[in-house]
């Protein structure tokens, strides 16, 4: 453990021995952290490592049980977020808190202590946003704006309070590569002006690219500090996990491509609600032996596409065929009996019932697939328990006691379980939405490897993901979804980030309309 003293005259925030306990869990254990002026400081760690707890103490929404925070050399008690803003600490949240029905200036006015006159505020917003390369039109209604612009509103809102430290929680998870690049320029500009940025991210590539210093948390403790520019994503990941992360091996990169197992032809569906996305003439052939990924920014029709393929949203019969059989209007149970399997994006509440035990959650998707879980209308508890133990062992699902309720598992462990539940069937067609969303590096590698292995054994795997690193790691072919249009799936080796980014930003739409 390297623990050099970094505090000096440039020190903005100096946390000493911060400790926070929730019941039996020590979320932060004697954490020391120094942030200097003008520094982009990465905070890394697996899920549950204590990153959110730590930044919430800086932002005043949690109080430490022990330790102290020095702000510009003076000891401070940050009692609430207003006090934090008073000091000059701002935070941009992962999930935006914007009112869709209001316009940009109204949303920002709501968050300011003294917004002043709306017209003056609008001018300030325009000038600040232009200065930092984050142009905003103050009169735009939020509902009409894409996610990238909504994030700009949050950032500009933060900047208007002239903070000296900005905390950002996974800011790029909703951005296209081009939008992320734009954000990085802004951050570098801020840093050059002396503002510090505390940057939480799972994307190690970008941490390496823009951050000056990284603090790595594991199980609530600082395990190391480093200069990310001198590390590789692999060494950063192993510091986070505490062991070397197995790299995913794609096996034979030119798989034995077989017959078409899942065919989407001109799949079209109207938007079910004002906030849903319509699907526009989506076509894709998914063949035995390959992993095809669909890239795209959140909210471009991924959820609707998943629901149509799974059968939760019925469409015309010929639009979807599994192993040649038309099934666009068939139930999800019928499709499962055709050896199809599905893993939705939302683990709790869609893929699993929070209050049911894991064994009962196995019954959820496998009661009709000939696994002997039901006979004569009765559920076999013994069989469910047996399968639960098997999946737990096979996919390394860790739990505090036997057969817990789904809600008590951490995100990564629950994801291993819901993916394992379907892989255990050896499905012929597997459709996964966001297979490793919010999952730590170790679990993500295990899941990705399992998806590739399934494809190589003759199944067809469709992955819907927003994580380009993941997509390039596992895909044989890549398509991009944008506003409900899907670009043609092209071999992964012919694709690169720039091309995917252009398709994400509307290229797929243009291509889909021509096709």
């Amino acid at each position, binding site marked *: 453990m390297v623990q050099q003293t970094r505090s000096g005259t440039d020190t903005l925030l100096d946390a000493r021995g911060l400790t926070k306990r929730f019941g039996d869990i020590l979320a932060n254990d004697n954490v020391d952290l120094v942030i200097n002026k003008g520094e982009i400081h990465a905070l890394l760690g697996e899920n*549950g490592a204590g990153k959110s707890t730590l930044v919430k103490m800086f932002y005043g929404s949690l109080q430490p049980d022990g330790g102290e925070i020095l702000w510009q050399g003076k000891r401070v008690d940050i*009692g609430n977020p207003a006090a934090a803003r008073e000091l000059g600490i701002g935070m941009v949240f992962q999930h935006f808190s914007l009112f869709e029905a209001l316009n940009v200036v109204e949303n920002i006015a709501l968050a300011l202590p003294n917004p002043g006159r709306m017209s003056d505020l609008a001018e300030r917003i325009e000038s600040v946003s232009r200065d930092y390369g984050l142009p905003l039109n103050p009169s735009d209604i939020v509902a009409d704006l894409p996610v990238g612009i909504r994030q700009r509103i949050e950032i500009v809102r933060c900047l208007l309070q002239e903070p000296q430290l900005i905390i950002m929680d996974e800011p790029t998870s909703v951005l296209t590569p081009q939008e992320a690049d734009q954000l990085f320029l802004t951050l570098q500009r801020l840093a050059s002006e002396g503002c510090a940025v505390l940057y939480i991210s799972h994307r190690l590539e970008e941490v390496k690219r823009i951050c000056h210093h990284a603090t790595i948390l594991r199980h609530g403790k600082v395990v190391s500090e480093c200069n990310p520019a001198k590390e590789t994503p692999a060494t950063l990941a192993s510091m986070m996990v505490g062991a070397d992360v197995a790299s995913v091996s794609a096996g034979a990169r030119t798989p034995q491509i077989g017959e078409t197992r899942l065919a989407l032809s001109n799949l079209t569906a109207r938007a079910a609600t004002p906030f849903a996305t319509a699907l526009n003439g989506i076509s894709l052939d998914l063949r035995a032996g390959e992993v095809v990924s669909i890239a795209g920014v959140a909210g471009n029709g991924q959820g609707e596409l998943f629901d149509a393929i799974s059968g939760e949203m019925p469409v015309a019969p010929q639009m979807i065929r599994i192993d040649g059989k038309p099934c666009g209007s068939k139930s999800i149970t019928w499709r499962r009996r055709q050896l199809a399997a599905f893993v939705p994006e939302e683990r709790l509440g869609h893929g699993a019932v*929070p209050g049911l035990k894991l064994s009962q959650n196995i019954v959820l998707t496998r009661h009709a697939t000939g696994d002997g879980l039901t006979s004569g*209308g009765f559920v076999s508890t013994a069989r469910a328990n047996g399968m639960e133990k098997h999946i737990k062992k096979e996919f390394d699902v860790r739990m505090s006691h036997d057969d817990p309720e789904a809600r*008590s598992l951490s995100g990564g462990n629950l994801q291993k379980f819901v993916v394992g539940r379907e892989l255990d069937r050896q499905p012929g067609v597997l459709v996964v939405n966001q297979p490793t969303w919010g999952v730590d590096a170790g679990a993500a590698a295990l899941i990705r490897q399992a998806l590739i292995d399934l494809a190589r054994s003759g199944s067809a795997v469709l992955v819907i993901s927003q994580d380009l690193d993941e997509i390039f790691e596992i895909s044989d072919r890549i398509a991009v979804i944008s506003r409900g249009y899907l670009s043609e799936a092209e071999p992964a080796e012919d694709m690169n980030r720039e091309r995917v980014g252009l398709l994400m930003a509307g290229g797929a739409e243009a291509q889909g309309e021509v096709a």
Partner: protein
Amino acid sequence: MRLELVKRKERSRTMALLSPLIAIALTALAAAIIFAVSGHNPLVGLYKFFIEPLTQQWSLQATIAKATPLVLIGCGLAVCYLSNNWNIGAEGQFIVGALFGSALPVMFPEFQSTATLPLMLVFGALGGALWALLPAVLKNWFNTNEILTSLMLVYVASLILDYLVRGPWRDPGGYNFPESRLFSDAAIIPNVFGGTMSLATPITIVIALVLAVVLARTLKGFEIRVMGESPRAGSFAGFSAKRLTLFSFALAGGLAGLAGTMEVSGGLNQLLPTISPGYGFTAIIVAFLGRLNPIGIIVAGFVLALSYIGGEAVQSAMGVSNKIASVIQGLLLFFVLACDTLILYRIRLASHQAPSGETAHV
């Protein structure tokens, strides 16, 4: 120092069992305060209300007779509530069931055979189910709120009953009293166990036991629980929310209708303008106090039936209004729902400076 609620990682099984007991204790405490405030000895009041009815055979029998419809209706409501269908209209389903069940003995009094009673019970269940399907269909087709529609249909049902016993179904030999003709012996539900208990009670217990097995062990029971907790996951499992709404309303209405028919063909032997002391509403409390579990509901039904008998007892012995029974029932539901918070949360004493809304983030 102050109290804080902290979310538990999993639901507490201990608290799920303890919560109704704590609620009953708190209700007794509240009742004692009410007795004391109204100038009575609280201990005597509590004894007369909760204990004395259990010491005499006649009042014990009366308690069981009142518990029977409460348990039967409560079981059906439990299926509704478990599956997230808020049927508040069991009172109306009870009344319409009684009307359908009475149609045979009132309109065809000469039809007296061994088939009379079974047919009445079937009609009663059908009538209750049909009445309950109205809010279910409205919910599925028009997205109406079933709490409102099922509740409003209670008053419609009660006015239909009122009209029938004052109009077409009035007893021709009844001196213009608003009541139907008396049922023939063939239309009366017999007593069993040496005449101490209506056959309705064993029928109810068997139905409750069957439902307990269905809920705990079958795929249908699984579907009901999944849909109640997480409709999105239920549709991912291939279950249909709309079909389950129809099923649970029809089941609850059917059981309420059966209870209605057994009530008129058991105790009353005729239709009157008022045939229920609010069984359909009290059964809502029974369902929750019984943890939405048929076995628990058998116990809870007995406890709530006791409150009717106890209310009469304190009225006659101490001159306290028998409205005390409704007050205590209401308090009980209030305390049960409040104590249920402890199943998913625990209480912690917090030091003064800690802010609110702090939960473990794991």
